[in-house]
């Protein structure tokens, strides 16, 4: 639908890359971006000239999400002809999503496919030759983008919505009929059946919405938390997986004060490793915050790696006891999650040391992150968690943020209709909410009726184009 509101989407291909560009367009684009951007120069974004680039941070409150470059394009001199902000951020899917979600919470709406181009066209920003190129895109990409959409909606999700939507449409028409013929003797929409239908729709929508969390896991990688005391080599392990110096590594305990994430593909499955600050009790405020976040991250992770320093472990009984306690604690707190105990710096352990450790702890992996010993085996173990089905299920899952948003809105409207039924609110008013629900369900299935058609015009474009 063509609207006057402010839209946001990823303009670069989804997935990890060196950098990613997030595009925001609409009357509030500059104001909203300004609200969450802190320039290194201290200048306010909203006071800056068009066609300028600014280095700074995307902040959510006191929390920095990423260091970014922000480009400003003021209307009408922008791609869409509206005020446009382009944020070049670091390329991890996680960061992209964090930034997009932040703006969605603060007044932006997810752009529908091709909406930027549609706006560009409507604002007279495209000449004929450009527009013809666009037309080629539409005709050539039709089948392909359809297939992508179908792939995105696994396991009959689209069909299920389609069926429910047509049932809802049917009731909507009955209600309309009832309204227009309220003076004549026509059959009325059966309220009991209608309530039952609403309940079914609500259940399906809620299920799909819940699946978004799972869907996100598969799309954005399986989160793996690496937990351990400071300086046990968490960052080194991460680097061993990544083969590049991305995490900050030093010998001073507590160097990694914030969580750092990276995604690597193992056997075709994305794993998102979350390097956390340790869980050591601390007086340091900054580090204390880091520890709190570590526990939050463990919450979100699907797999937990507890990393301990081998030589330290055998240096005294206290250390060993603590590790056993930590292990039990993590296991009890996350009974469903695979938990691996990794003994790092194993190259510095003697045979006796290993025996001693094995006596107290089960199922341990001896590795050396620094020398790359046991890392391959660890990779296999991680894949096994996936292959044993712990993270796999055949249920329908939603992975597309746009679908997710439509589902949320549809559910909201369905709940309004249920409320109206309960409160005995007149059916002509209820019809407004039903129409809105139909609209949002139609956004998912791509069905076109009346004004839904207008929004569908450029629907074959990639999102963000």
């Amino acid at each position, binding site marked *: *639908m063509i609207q*006057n509101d402010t839209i946001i989407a990823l303009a670069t291909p989804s997935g990890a890359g060196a950098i990613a560009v997030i595009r925001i367009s609409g009357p509030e684009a500059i104001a909203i971006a300004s609200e969450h951007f802190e320039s290194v120069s201290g200048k306010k974004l909203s006071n800056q000239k068009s066609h300028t680039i600014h280095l700074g941070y995307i902040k959510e409150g006191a929390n920095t999400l990423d260091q970014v470059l922000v480009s400003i394009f003021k209307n009408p001199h922008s791609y869409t002809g509206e005020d446009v902000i382009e944020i070049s951020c670091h390329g991890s899917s996680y960061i992209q999503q964090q930034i997009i979600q932040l703006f969605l919470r603060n007044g932006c709406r997810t752009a529908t496919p091709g909406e930027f181009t549609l706006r560009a066209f409507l604002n*007279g920003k495209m000449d004929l030759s450009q527009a013809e190129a666009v*037309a080629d895109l*539409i005709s050539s990409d039709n089948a392909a983008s359809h297939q992508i959409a179908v792939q995105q909606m696994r396991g009959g999700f689209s069909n299920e919505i389609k069926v429910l939507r047509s049932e809802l449409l049917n009731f909507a028409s009955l209600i309309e009929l009832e309204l227009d013929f309220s003076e004549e003797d026509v059959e009325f929409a059966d309220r009991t059946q209608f309530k039952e239908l609403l309940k079914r729709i609500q259940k399906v929508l809620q299920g799909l919405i819940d699946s978004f969390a799972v869907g996100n896991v598969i799309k954005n990688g399986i989160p793996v938390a690496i937990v351990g005391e400071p300086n046990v080599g968490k960052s080194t392990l991460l680097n061993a997986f990544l083969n590049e110096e991305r995490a900050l590594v030093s010998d001073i305990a507590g160097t990694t004060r914030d969580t750092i994430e990276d995604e690597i593909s193992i056997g075709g499955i994305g794993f998102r490793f979350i390097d956390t600050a340790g869980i050591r009790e601390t007086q340091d405020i900054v580090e204390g915050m880091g520890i709190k976040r570590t526990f939050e991250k463990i919450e979100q992770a699907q797999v937990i790696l507890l990393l301990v320093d081998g030589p330290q472990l055998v240096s005294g009984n206290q250390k060993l006891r603590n590790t056993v306690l930590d292990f039990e604690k993590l296991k009890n707190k996350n009974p469903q999650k695979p938990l691996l105990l990794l003994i790092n710096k194993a190259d510095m352990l003697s045979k006796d040391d290993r025996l001693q450790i094995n006596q107290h702890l089960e199922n341990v992996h001896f590795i050396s992150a620094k020398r790359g010993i046991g890392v391959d085996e660890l990779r296999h173990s991680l894949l096994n968690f996936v292959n044993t089905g712990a993270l796999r299920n055949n249920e329908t899952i939603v992975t597309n943020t746009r679908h997710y948003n439509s589902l949320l809105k549809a559910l909201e409207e369905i709940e309004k209709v249920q409320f109206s039924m309960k409160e005995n609110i007149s059916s*002509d*008013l209820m019809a407004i909410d039903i129409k809105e629900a139909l609209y949002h369900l139609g956004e998912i299935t791509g069905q*076109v009726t009346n004004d839904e058609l207008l929004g569908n015009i450029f629907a074959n474009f990639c999102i963000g184009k």
Partner: protein
Amino acid sequence: MFGEKYDVIVVGGGHAGAEAAAAAANMGSKTLLVTMNLQNIGQMSCNPAMGGIAKGQIVREIDALGGYSGIVSDKSAIQFKMLNKSKGPAMWSPRTQNDRMLFAEEWRLMLEGTPNVDFYQEMVSGLLVENGKIAGVKTSLGIEIKSKSVILTNGTFLNGLIHIGEKQFGGGRAGEKAATGITEQLVELGFESGRMKTGTPPRVDGRSLDYSKMSVQPGDAQPEKFSYTNTQVLQHQRDCHMTHTSALVHDLLREGFDRSPMFNGRIKSLGPRYCPSIEDKINRFADKDSHQMFVEPEGWKTVEVYVNGFSTSLPEDVQFKALRSVVGFENVKFFRPGYAIEYDYFPPTQLRHTLETKLVENLYFAGQINGTTGYEEAASQGLMAGINAHLKNNEQSPLILKRDEAYIGVLIDDLITKGTEEPYRMFTSRAEYRTLLRQDNADLRLTPLSYAIGLADEDRMKRMEEKLNKSEALVNFFKETSVLPKDINPILKEVDSAPVKQSDKMYKPFSRPNVTMDHMKTLPIVSDYITTHNLDNEVLEQAEIQIKYSGYIAKEKVNADKLHRLEAVKIPDNFDYTKLKSLSFEAREKLSKIKPVTISQASRISGVTPSDISVLLVFLGR
């Protein structure tokens, strides 16, 4: 006899013709109304009622624009009902029962009292067309009358054919001649024509009915009215009555089916599905062995009665026998039998939004000639044709009402864009933004537009502004004034709503379901305000709706605004669709024929797909 040239000639004196003549003349056009029988101006050919669901809103819109239908209806009303009062305000629909003779008389007097309207009684048998432009009309006596524009409002008269059972005869209405010549000439000029069908029930002698066996259908205890002007509210009213058919009645009717023109193939054209004849109802709803019938008086004094719900073209003896089996109709005497009528219409996709034909400049069509049914639909088209004929003659921009501005806008856009296969009747569900198109705010929506083009007078405009200002002030009063729990809780308790603990602005409890203005009026602070500011019911109603339904209204406004964006993408008048090979064949054909004005309109044409629209957008190039 007609030496001078008229600005506007209106052919036909029904609801469409009368409104067209009044509008053009009131705007200053020298206008001639030509009709076959001047005694029959403003006839109610079918039921003696105005308004109803969606139609009542149209009458209010006509009135807000400065048309006469609302005033005439008020002056001739014998009963008033606000339908659907239990539903949301978009569904509230005013309807009057009218004195048929008085209605026609009031129309005639209104027109006679309108400066610039001349009258002439004769059949128009042809049009004067010069170089694709209208030049006037030709009558059956061979008289040529010149004019700048012509508005055709022929109703059911063009080659009208009346059917009663196996009998058929030419006629435009019971007892009136059909009109010939115009269809043939228009087809010659390149117009496409079609046939439609409609029907009407028998009229009977009220003295022969036993009302004690029927249920009484009275008017509202507090009747309202159509017009925003100072017409009078009814002081006393006449009742209608209700009875119903039975299995026996249905069996008796079925006996005549083999002689029914509907079933023996004599009538091929499509009738309205939603105003079916009794034989149609029996046929389509075979499992129902009873249908409602409303018994409606035709006036204050006359004994003639209209039998609503019993429209039929079965043989008169079958009609009579079956009706005598209806409860209360055991001794019924007929004034005249029901009949079906077939007539010529011109698919309205041949028109512009001004109702001017695309083929002949300054020729306008309004009413049943465009495939619509209903007095209100006809009257509103007549009004718009009259307005736009005048505006075009004076080189002013046209008045085109948008779909979120008026039912009239929805009606004309639907006709022009989608055409119609069966007689088109307005429904509230045809309007996407029903909640905006209410009967209570037609004046707020439309009077300023009409005032700007010089039709609605100063008095109307002032009335509207006063209502607007007073209702806005009242809304603010509710938003700014607090109410104590001890004052509001008794009201909340009465409607089973949870009590409040702290004092709050009054609009909050007022917004709750089932709390009404009548409840709020019991608060002294509210009643004082109303008295001090001398607020009438219209203002109270307006404020109540604005407060209680603001969420829904705002939601529909947002949706309507979306539509306006694509309305802004205009398609040039001479756009050549045949060159766009990437359009589907059907789209090319339909777009070439309908010539939509905007992308938005193009997207509403059936058979035009989203991909056609994107191709179109691209090739428009802007």
